């Protein structure tokens, strides 16, 4: 049991700061590429189309961090390593931050803050609408992710509100799937992972109901 105790201690002491660092790494990596381009150290650090590169990088990171958020509970249940639950909220907040950066990059680099263009994009392009909707739904979740807000809302109301992560994850993955000319590669992998994570929850729910019925 000494090993388990050590693991628990590690979880308490190091898991939170290490998670924070891991969540910041994609941002640090992207910032370094920008510095290389802007200072001329390596003008090609982001390839030919660094606008597309930047907002695809941020979007991919956002969706992956969101999927990791959804994977924490199944992982905790499978491994029995309770400290994992301590970092779930900060991973979720990071998913929101990357999504917001993704949208800022789109508005700034792609749309040049042109609201008429933005409106056209929103109305005519379903995937933009889905992405915006996902981001809007994330906002209340991010804002209520402090200990204080959990206390104020009460656990039940908080859980109800944060159930929104399921529909918004579906919206985000749909946004990802619809934006490509041909569905392949990463968007497809994201969709399969989301489907598996949702299936796991449905299966747990059904198992719980069967157990209740038996009891």
């Amino acid at each position, binding site marked *: 049991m000494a090993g388990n105790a050590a693991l628990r201690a590690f979880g308490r002491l190091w898991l939170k700061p290490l998670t924070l660092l891991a969540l910041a790494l994609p941002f640090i990596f992207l910032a370094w590429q920008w510095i290389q381009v802007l200072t001329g150290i390596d003008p090609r650090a982001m*390839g*030919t*189309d*660094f606008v597309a590169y930047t907002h695809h990088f941020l979007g991919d990171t956002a969706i992956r961090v969101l999927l990791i958020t959804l994977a924490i509970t199944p992982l905790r249940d499978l491994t029995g390593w309770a400290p994992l639950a301590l970092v779930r909220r900060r991973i979720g907040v990071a998913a929101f931050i990357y999504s917001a950066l993704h949208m800022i990059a789109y508005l700034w680099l*792609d749309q040049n803050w042109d609201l008429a263009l933005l409106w*056209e*994009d929103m109305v005519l*392009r379903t995937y933009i609408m889905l992405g915006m909707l996902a981001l809007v739904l994330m906002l209340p979740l991010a804002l209520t992710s402090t200990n204080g807000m959990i206390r104020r809302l009460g656990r039940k109301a908080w859980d109800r509100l944060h159930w929104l992560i399921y529909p918004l994850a579906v919206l985000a993955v749909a946004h990802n799937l619809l*934006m490509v000319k041909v569905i392949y590669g990463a968007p497809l992998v994201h969709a399969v992972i989301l489907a598996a994570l949702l299936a796991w929850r449905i299966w747990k729910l059904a198992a719980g109901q069967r157990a209740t019925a038996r009891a």
Partner: protein
Amino acid sequence: MELTFRRNEAYQALRSEMTPHESYIRRREFLAAAGFTGAAGLLGGLPAHAQTASAQGAAVQIAPGGAMKARTSAYTVADPTAAEQDFTSYCNFYEFGMDKDDPPRNAGKMNVANWKVTVEGETDAPGVYDLTSLIDYAALEERVYRHRCVERWSMVVPWIGVPMWPVLNRLKPKPEARYVQFLTRLDPSSMVGLGFGGLDWPYSEALHLNEARNDLAFLAVGAYGKGLKQQNGAPIRTVVPWKYGYKGAKSVSTIRFTTSQPPTAWNTANPSEYGFLSNVNPNRSHPRWSQTMERVLGVGGFNPQRRTEMFNGYESQVAYLYKDIDLIKFH
């Protein structure tokens, strides 16, 4: 210059009976038997001026990246050209993979030496041609064109090649031919991206012959003073600057004249998004990309935004082709 095919009954009979490939092989035998020797002899019924070029030692296919001489033409663009490295490293050529850097990595394995082009369909000159008999490498010109991708980016590219129509005309389309279809070579041994399933292979593109007759329509064999690299469509591709980039067929191995509109790759895959005409049109929006603006690539710094022009800036040269056509409906 008018193309004169050898008037030989046996040869004509062979050509009408055989499949194109066989006819090519047999033609070689025939010509060898008839005493033709050397490269020019093997070319068969080639344009007279190509024979001349061969006599000058210029009818040799220039390898990818090989130095290529061309005279300048009146076709230029005031904006700066894209850096060559961007042109060769940022490519859509799905047969070699779906990401922009896949074709530069993978396409070099395609062997493009001694390239053959099959000419078929509604033509009086079907057969398999050596590329050197279609393209006069001694009479190349450089044309700086805008290249507008449907993905909302653009590059200014200095292509090298020849105008399309004189070449097609020498291939004797029959009076009833109304379209010309270009098929990209299908080379499973080098094309690692054939399995993705989104498009039908070989890649097909087509033009109405009236469009092909427009002087802007171009057959490129080079760019930036060099033979085209494979990822850019070596050794020969079509360039139709008033249309979205995918209308340009790369690595063309078949030219087919038809009476009705041939199926084309993106139009078949998704007709509501990619029309047959695919003219650059900022007034018709696309479900994935706004077409009112474009990011100019390859000019360094921030990719500047530019307003997309009707027909990609070539309106005065091509608008007559579509004067009674609703370009929103027939996009």
